[in-house]
């Protein structure tokens, strides 16, 4: 098998002309996107437009049908190498990319601390003690030092999502993906989660955020991407919120703002 050569682009993550169909429906119709180190990319657009699928391709939770996914100029899709080390390559990619889900996806049978430390002992091979200390520090970072022994069911939605953020951060990711992190939250709890995310952005974390929170997009986004109908309909700096060039973007923004 010949190795796929990639010319260095300097991007941390790159999607190159990715396509994805579910059954007969093509949800991603050729998208190319680069995420540079330290950049905060916000993806927005109507439901069913392919935002989440696009985000999930970045850590290959969703495998494209065609195109290319590169991280630090190394291709992870098409799968490099033979079928035997495919799984370990995937693990390698994912352990460098943190992901936060709309519905938190905390492990209900484990405490907040165990939720955070699981991958530390399992993937990073830290000792129990080191993992515990690291997990405690990460939970303290999101303001939950008082809640480490609580089970997810004993926490509010906002607290659960902050545990989920801590779980992702504990792996020292180079990139954080957020898949509508506040969409499942009560309005009064959204602020605490956005607060943690903004702090993370200020500290220089590279982030890709799928969100409907246009206020957050305006404050944090460096590069805003409007995804609709499986393609990037418009992309640019914050100015596209105020002065969208495309009719579709304008119509969407009029509806949500």
């Amino acid at each position: 098998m010949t190795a796929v050569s990639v010319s260095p682009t300097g991007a941390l993550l790159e999607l190159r002309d990715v396509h994805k169909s579910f059954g007969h429906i093509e949800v991603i119709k050729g998208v190319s996107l680069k995420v540079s180190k330290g950049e905060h990319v916000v993806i927005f657009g109507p439901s069913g437009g392919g935002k989440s699928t696009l985000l999930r391709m970045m850590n290959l939770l969703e495998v494209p049908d065609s195109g290319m996914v590169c991280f630090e100029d190394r291709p992870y899709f098409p799968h490099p190498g033979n079928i035997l080390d495919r799984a370990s390559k995937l693990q390698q990619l994912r352990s460098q990319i943190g992901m936060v889900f709309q519905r938190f996806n905390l492990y209900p049978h484990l405490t907040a601390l165990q939720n955070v430390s699981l991958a530390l002992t399992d993937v990073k091979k830290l000792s129990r003690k080191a993992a515990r200390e690291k997990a405690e520090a990460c939970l303290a970072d999101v303001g939950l030092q008082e809640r480490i022994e609580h089970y997810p069911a004993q926490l509010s939605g906002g607290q659960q999502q902050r545990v989920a953020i801590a779980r992702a951060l504990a792996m020292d990711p180079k990139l954080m993906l957020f898949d509508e992190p506040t969409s499942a939250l009560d309005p009064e709890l959204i602020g605490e989660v956005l607060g943690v995310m903004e702090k993370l952005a200020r500290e220089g974390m590279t982030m890709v955020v799928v969100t409907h929170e246009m206020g957050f997009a305006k404050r944090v986004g460096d590069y805003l991407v409007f995804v609709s109908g499986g393609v990037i309909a418009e992309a640019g700096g914050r100015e596209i919120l105020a002065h969208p060039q495309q009719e579709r973007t304008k119509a969407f923004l009029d509806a949500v703002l």
Partner: protein
Amino acid sequence: MRVDWNPTNYQFAWEVVAEYRVWLFEGVLLTLKIALVSMAFAMVLGLFVALLRMSPIWPIRSLASLYISIFRAIPPLVFILWMYYGVTLVTGVNIEAFTSGVICLSLQYAAWLAEIYRSGLQAIDKGQGEAAMSTGLSRTRAFTRVIWPQAWRIIIPPIANNLVGIIKDSSLVGVIGLNELMRQSQIATSLTFRPFELYTAAMVIYIVLTLAIARMASFLEQRAARSLKVQTRRVPATASSIRTAA
């Protein structure tokens, strides 16, 4: 009208139960041995079949489906006789009665258990495995650390039901000469002509065994579900917010 509870004026002789207690006890031991060994094999094989049944590759999936449908359709008594008398005759391989009985019960219960495993595993949100894999866990580790511990809680009660079932079905292997509880009572009956007393004793023993398993299962269930209980008690946040918004 007066109900005559003993119209034949039958003279009970419960002392035969005491007299044959060692026989019955030996029968219970063999019953438990057959049931537990078969259950252990069935639990392992059943999980394997369940995983094949959920495979993304359709020929594997349909093969597992076929296994499940076939082994659930055969009456255990027919299967036991076929295996012990039929298969040995054709293959020339002399399988011991115990082995033969255990093979039959294991194969059949694996089919039932496979569907239980599948329902338990499918009840776990897909996001659980995704979250685990997004932090770099392998597919296998995501299964053993995140999915299985949650599925296990769901399947404890139906697994216990199947253990009860296998104990009762183990009474069928008496037909191939294994002296388990049922056959021991039968032999004792043929010697004493006391079917009522001895079969009553056998039934009581089966009931006690079943109750013991039920107790054990509810203990395991409670222990495993401690944190999930908290979850069911909590009112979902969205419900309260809808109320205040209205």
